[in-house]
């Protein structure tokens, strides 16, 4: 479960202070599929960074999984990202020198999971994504959709509390985008909590709930009917 209470984040651009987040308040329950939408500059990226523990709020309270994320050291934040969060990025962000399997193994390496167990779990995650026959391929040898599925497998492999997807279909053609969205639906129905950040209304429409952002404020929370 995620809870944000009056979270603010201010960036200084020279003389000017930009309120990337201005007293944002919201809640996401376990098992939800939520889309955060808004035009660029609306603060949704900052929202994602804070949800993803890549950044810390200047003020306000952010609680992830019952744990208040505040005043943590970088080292501790890295640990929280590793154990509780799975990231899926627009441009996949796979390590090009590593094979699909090694990419998926990486979060487990940082968790200190040992060789055989690590490989078993990585292969499981890749198989779940329908990539069992591609595990030794490098990202450059895979199509965009396959790369995104490797990235999803990497996000899933640690059994995170939350999967955070930032424009996951942005670099994919429409058909592949639909496939990937279907994967998120499947994962959600299996009980995974998913937060999708997008500016695409059609993609957002597929989520169970939408949080609209504008100028650093959380505007409307719409339920799907």
């Amino acid at each position, binding site marked *: 479960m995620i809870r944000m209470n009056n979270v603010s984040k201010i960036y200084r651009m020279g003389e000017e202070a930009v309120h990337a987040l201005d007293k944002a308040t919201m809640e996401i329950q376990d098992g939800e599929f939520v889309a955060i939408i808004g035009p660029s500059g609306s603060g949704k990226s900052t929202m994602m*960074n804070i949800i*993803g523990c*890549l*950044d810390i709020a200047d003020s306000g309270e952010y609680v992830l999984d019952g744990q208040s994320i505040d005043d943590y050291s*970088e*080292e501790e934040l*890295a*640990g929280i*990202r*590793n*154990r509780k969060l799975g*990231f899926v*990025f627009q441009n996949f*962000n*796979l*390590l090009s*020198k*590593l094979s699909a399997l090694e990419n998926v193994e*990486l*979060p487990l*390496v*940082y*968790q*200190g999971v040992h060789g055989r167990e690590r490989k078993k779990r990585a292969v499981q995650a890749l198989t779940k994504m329908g990539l069992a026959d591609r595990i030794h391929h490098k990202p450059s040898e895979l199509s965009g959709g396959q790369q995104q599925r490797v990235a999803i497998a*990497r996000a899933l492999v*640690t059994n995170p509390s939350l999967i955070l997807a930032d424009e996951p279909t942005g670099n994919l053609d429409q058909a592949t985008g639909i496939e990937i969205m279907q994967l998120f639906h499947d994962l959600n129905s299996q009980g995974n909590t998913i937060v999708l950040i997008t500016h695409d209304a059609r993609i957002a429409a597929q989520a169970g709930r939408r949080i609209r952002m504008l100028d650093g404020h959380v505007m409307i929370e719409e339920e799907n009917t």
Partner: protein
Amino acid sequence: MIFQSFRMAFSSILSNKMRSFLTMLGIIIGVVAVVVLVSLVNGATNSVTSQIQGLGSDLLTVNITSKGSKALTMGEVEQLADDYDSIGATAPSMTQNAAAKHGTNTYSATIQGTTSSYETIGGLSLLYGRFLKTPDIGDSTAVAVVGVDVADELFGTRQIVGQSISVSGRSFLVIGVLNESTSAFGGSDGKMIIPYTLAQRIFKQSDVTSYYVTARDSNSVDAAQTDLTTAMMRKFNQDADAFSITNQAAILDTMASVMSTMTLLLGGIAGISLLVGGIGIMNIMLVSVAERTREIGIRKAIGAGRKRILSQFLIESLVISVLGGFIGILVSWGILAIVSAIASMSFAMTGSVIALAVGFCMFVGVVFGLYPASKASKLQPIQALRMD
């Protein structure tokens, strides 16, 4: 985890082979310079030391510098061995270069006049014939014992006992040929040894200006030197400037200190090249960190902490430098093997030199890898991810 880090370091090094090799080259050259130079000096020191020791560390050389009226005679020199228990043997010596001839062949030989006891003092052994004997000295017989170079150059063969060699119009009967010398110092190969009394006449010099003394055994060298000093002081009216006594052990000590200074100097210069190699590593690691900003961002996003990133880059620079070190040691081994073959001397790498080189490489790898690695570890994940 450590294994995983090393594997990652290797794959990163392999993914950019040319660059990694060029970076390593700095370290390789540095290590080769250190190992080869230090080993060469060590080898030369050992060889020179063993040669000096081969001459006998119980050997004392006395040179008379006095031009005064008090002249030292051959008899007085021989008397020393009887007068002092500490002294084993004495042999006066005078040398001069002269052209030795046989038929049409000429060789510039070192003519040495001495006595029969020089055979043991100089550690000589004979290939053919015999050495000078006491009657030869007493009678000033025109006989000569020659080194192998003299025999080779004048006769083209070494079995020349019974032949004659002429020096400035005098004819000498060859009574012995010396074995090839193993020592580079005072090498006897180019010598033509004749009775001392005859040399006095030929060189027109009756005073003894130089003679060798051996102690009775290696424990009495100091005593022999003290006794010799006493005797010479008495002879030259307490004039310490009239003579000088050189102790072989003292020469060894001097040698050792000169050589260790040399080692330090050369090692230091070579160490500087290793340092330059280290700067090369730092440079490349900084480029690598800049290039891999995105990778660092990804790693951080999926849970790599600062320590992980720091150790990853540190291990990478360590692997480069230590790998370079090992290649350098292999290359040095090859160079030393070649030099040893050419110079027919043995230049072995000692374990301590290898340990020093590897240790220094690790030091360089860590020191010059630390700054780039810490720079990498301090990258903010959001900023790093934003890079394209």
